[in-house]
């Protein structure tokens, strides 16, 4: 029996697709993500990678993996569905923002201007996928017993590792304390700060089952372009007309 081993890891191909996209005029790029649910093993590595990459506090999650149990014992199966922001082409969340803090950028990524967001959470309510969460200033070390630090002071010693903010949107946010994004709505942004330096989103590179694909759907040579023609392709809650740019392979 002959084994048809892949010629190259799909990550290598997507990396090549990304390098090609970076040479294009930015408005010509249309980012898309495709998730093969048949390959997802429910390891939650993407969720953890996302939390780590974006230094997400407790209660803020950009890419949970939904779990569903089907059938009755002993005939039971589990189904997993990673759910990033759908980056809809017709997003209900941007229309409701009263201060134009959230909008779609030229590449079709729905983003939030933290410094403009007033934290009304109307977008959280409007999103039919529950893809937005609010930052309620939670800390992992909240309630942890503290000992006085000898050199740097007790507060810095205990909370130091989570006080550094993420480099979201390629900006240097102030140390996590009272400023944004605390009090803001937060969501997946396709790791724009990584894309800007030629790296794939954290959830893509961390997927051990290679179930997540990412690239420019406007590029006919890209992996995502070829996958979009699959008959297995579908989108979540298609009937709402939101036209997500995150697709699923059933």
């Amino acid at each position: 029996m002959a084994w048809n081993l892949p010629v190259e890891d799909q990550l290598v191909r997507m990396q090549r697709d990304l390098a090609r996209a970076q040479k294009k005029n930015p408005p010509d790029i249309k980012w898309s993500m495709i998730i093969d649910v048949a390959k997802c093993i429910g390891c939650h590595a993407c969720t953890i990678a996302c939390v780590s990459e974006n230094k997400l506090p407790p209660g803020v999650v950009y890419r949970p993996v939904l779990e569903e149990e089907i059938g009755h014992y002993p005939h039971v199966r589990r189904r997993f569905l990673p759910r990033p922001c759908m980056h809809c082409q017709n997003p209900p969340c941007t229309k409701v923002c009263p201060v134009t803090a959230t909008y779609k950028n030229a590449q079709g990524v729905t983003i939030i201007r933290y410094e403009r967001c007033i934290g009304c959470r109307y977008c959280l309510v409007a999103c039919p996928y529950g893809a937005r969460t609010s930052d309620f200033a939670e800390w992992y070390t909240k309630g942890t017993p503290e000992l006085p630090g000898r050199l740097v002071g007790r507060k810095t010693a205990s909370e130091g590792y989570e006080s550094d903010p993420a480099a979201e949107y390629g900006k240097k946010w102030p140390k996590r304390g009272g400023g944004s994004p605390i009090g803001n709505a937060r969501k997946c942004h396709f790791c724009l700060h990584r894309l800007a330096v030629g790296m794939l989103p954290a959830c893509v590179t961390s997927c051990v089952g290679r179930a997540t694909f990412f690239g420019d759907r406007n590029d006919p040579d890209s992996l995502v372009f070829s996958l979009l023609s699959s008959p297995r392709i579908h989108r979540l809650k298609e009937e709402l007309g939101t036209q997500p740019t995150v697709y699923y392979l059933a």
Partner: protein
Amino acid sequence: MNGTIFKVLIGLAVAGLLAGSWGMGERLIYGLNPVAFGSYVPWGLWVSFYLFFLGLSAGAFLVTTMTYVFGMKRFEVIARLSAFTVLICLLCEVLFITLDLGRMERIYRFLLTPSFSSLMTWMFVFFNAMLVIYAIKTFLLARGDLVRWVGDPARRGRSIYRLLALGLTSYDASAWAREKRMVRLLSILSLPVGLLFYGTNGAFFAILMNRPIWNSALTPLLFIMAAILSGGALVTFLTFLFMHDEELIHGLGRAILFVLVTFLFLQAMQFFVGYQTGLAMTVTTLNLIAFGPYWYSFWIVHLLIGSLIPLILLTTRPHDSRAVAWACFLIVATFLSVRFNFVIPDLAIYKLDGLEETFFHPRLRTNYVPNLNEWLVSLWIVSLGLLAFLLGTRWLPVLSPEKEGSEHAI
């Protein structure tokens, strides 16, 4: 209102402010961290209170409608009281919704970078329009008495009244006539603006797709009726407390009865259509209201105490002012449950199957119970509103019994 009740109410308001200041302090220092709501139920008690006061502010709308649309000139005498009530309600309303913002210091963004595709922007626009209309209206209605008070040597704080009267020292018949015209104009203007304000607040929820109960054309209408019901009931109750005008109270009672029946009919339609449609998320939400953990707030607080008893009182004793006042008091006192049952159940269902099984955190759950901080902040705002209202009735000419005041009331 007699002096003892007044003093008791002042005492309660001050005690509420003192007790609530703990919660306010926490809110101002720690932001939204102390609250119980999270990302799946992002709006809680404060938004319910916001809607509650939104409704109460509609009392003047009812009074103006009855005066101008139905030509019931008798209602003109409570214009001043109802306009002042609107101002207090708007004050409470704006405090609740501002404190609910995650970054309330950026509220100026509504002016700098507004998005007119958002109904929240329109709410902001109409809220300010209402505030301006009713502030000017209250001022114009009270200015005659303010000027008189300035000239009254027995009255204390005349310099403040002079300031409030904008330096006017005489107020003759021609000034009355001029201001009467302006008040009439403002009253007529307040009708479309008020309708848009209350309707927009309903549409704010109605346009949200995939929301089982909110996403309905019925919602804006329900909001307008709810506002007129609770606001009208409040004005009727206040008229009983401060003005003792039997005929007026009976007239208002009849209007409240009509609005109450209409509101209950619309609510019944909402349930009937929802259950008949049989959509899982709609049925789940309706079940949450009727049989969920807060079933008593629907059946006992809203339907029994806030609807059935007032209905019986208003139908069987329409000419008994005390009964009418009691009915209206019960409607107002229980109306928060209507707002709570509107806001929470629609949020308290997961948007995607399986979301409940992943990523456990209290902020990512749909079971919401308002915590002590939320109640204390609410107590603080309500107490502030009560104090401002009571002091206003004592130190400002919002209840002036002078005949002149009534004549140029609208």
